[in-house]
């Protein structure tokens, strides 16, 4: 889906890919995040890291009534405190998305799809 916004000058439509790219690059800048993973990586049984142009496969914005929610699928480094990494990802993704698009996100759900030993 895409996100629609209206200003008094007209409409703005932000694509899923755009949101995925922004949220994805915010997420991988977080310490402890090795990369984004595809949502279906569990089923496909390959925890491949997504390349930059495919970030949208690991980030899913959606609309719940009037609120926006985004799901982020990540792979985390082995040996870091995962709870902290995840909460930093939530904070950062929310902050960056809201700052970039001026859309409030009610929730950032983070899914740790795998750990990577380094």
């Amino acid at each position, binding site marked *: 889906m895409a996100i629609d916004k209206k200003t008094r000058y007209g409409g703005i439509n932000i694509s899923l890919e755009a949101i995925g790219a922004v949220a994805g690059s915010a997420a991988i*800048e977080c*310490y*402890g995040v090795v990369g984004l993973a595809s949502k279906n990586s569990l089923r496909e049984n390959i925890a491949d890291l997504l390349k930059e142009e495919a970030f949208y496969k690991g980030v899913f914005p959606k609309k719940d009534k009037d609120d926006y929610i985004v799901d982020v699928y990540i792979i985390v480094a082995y040996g870091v405190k995962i709870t902290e*990494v995840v909460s*930093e990802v939530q904070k950062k993704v929310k*902050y960056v998305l809201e700052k970039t698009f001026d859309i409030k996100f009610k929730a950032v759900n983070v899914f740790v799809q795998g750990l990577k030993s380094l």
Partner: protein
Amino acid sequence: MKTINGHDLKKMIISGANQLYNYYPEVDALNVFPVPDGDTGMNMNLTMSSGAKEVANRADEDIYEIARAFSKGLLMGARGNSGVITSQIFRGFAQALEGKKTINAVEFAEAWNMGREVAYKAVMRPVEGTILTVVRESSAALLDQVNESWQVEGALDFMLAEARESLKRTPDLLPILKEVGVVDSGGAGFVRILEGFVSALFDKVIEKNQATAFEEPREMAGAAMEAEEFGYCTEFILKIGAGESEKKPFVDKRFSNILNSHGNSIVMVRDDDIVKVHIHTLLPGNILSYAQQFGEFMTLKIENMSEQHSHLDDNNKLKDVKHSHESLHYEAEPAEEKDYAIIAVAAGAGLEKMFKELRVDYIVSGGQTMNPATEDFITAIKKVRAKHIFILPNNPNIILAANQAAEVLTDEYHVTVIPSKTIPQGLVACMMFNPEAKLEENVEEMNNALASVQSGAITFSIKDTAIDGINIKKDDYMALSGKKIVATHPDKYKVAEMLLEQMIDEMTSIVTIIVGEGVEKGKLRKLTDKFEKKYGDVEFDVRQGDQPVYSFLIGVE
């Protein structure tokens, strides 16, 4: 020293943790990246404390044992981004020491280098101009220069100097730092840790400077310091019914009433046959004798409060009993449940009074510089006892904590957070509240009210900086309209005038000016007189708010 062993490292760690503790409010103040929430110092401090606690009781000679324990403590206690990074640095540091009893300067440099490697591994796209840069540059410089003839303290001193230089360069690497005019906060925290390390090697272990932090900003923000009159902070865990002699039956309510009549800042938590109590009292002996009638003490701690103390968690399952002076005290519950109750966040006697007049039941003390925690809201919600509870956070940074509190208690209480971002919004929302109306109507009316008022504020700048393209000098006053800075000037009345000129338009009917600390009435009167003449049909309402930090809060409707 040619080599250092476990004892030396332990001293370094404790000294480093204390040095960071002493400076963490300063580190907090630098925090603008990755999210400017001002908690980097606190997070690093908690992380380091957890690491230091792990080594505090160990007496190993082997340096590896100490390093490993430290690394484990850091990992378990890691908080926030920089805390996690710190834990990784020392994880690598410890890995490099495996099997070693003592290390010399070269091995020391290699250990730091390993710390850097491990720290860098855990991030896909490292951001330069952060703590990572400081570690990388300082450890690389040390490894480059060090040789067998160096003393360990010399090596560390050299690394500290490099780290300071590197920290100074962080604004060149990370534009946001430059724009705000600060160095990186995580890097600054790391430099503080190194300072503590160096100091310990020169036989001067840094002590915790008790006067720092915590209580200070809270006092500033006008929190009630009722606790002052009570001399001893007393905490104990009581096991009911334990011991040889016959014990009296324990009745929660009666026990808490007795506590209430003997002191304040009372927190009492019961879990089966264990009771944890925290109280500030002049006569701790009386409380203890009374409590002992019901059981035996598992632990006891009494501290004279004129000697302030830091409160470290004891690894107890009841550790949610926290020592906080400003938190809301356990009091007798109101007799009846009302239909509605409102909880609002405000700081300053006048503002609190204004909210109280508008039927707010409970004020959580707080504002821009001291955000109340989720727990403060939980305490407030539990206390007001009403079918529906509204929370007015009155600050964008507090909405989240309020929402979290509402979520946590969603099964037991019906809580609605009205997302008011400013004090004027909160006041207007209260005015629209109607105790006779239905819940939905109230929610709608209050939410609509938020948009009906434009909020402005005048405050001063704590440093030279540039935001939104406006250059601001330290101690100058700046005007905020909504979130944007629209004007700045050394004179607060002048800034207020500039702000009002911008905010008032042909639609304006009422302007509410809430006056903070340090405002001269005469000068303000002149200003409002001038505006009243100029805008004949606008009503100017001046109220005394006594809020700290903001000289004026302005609501335009």
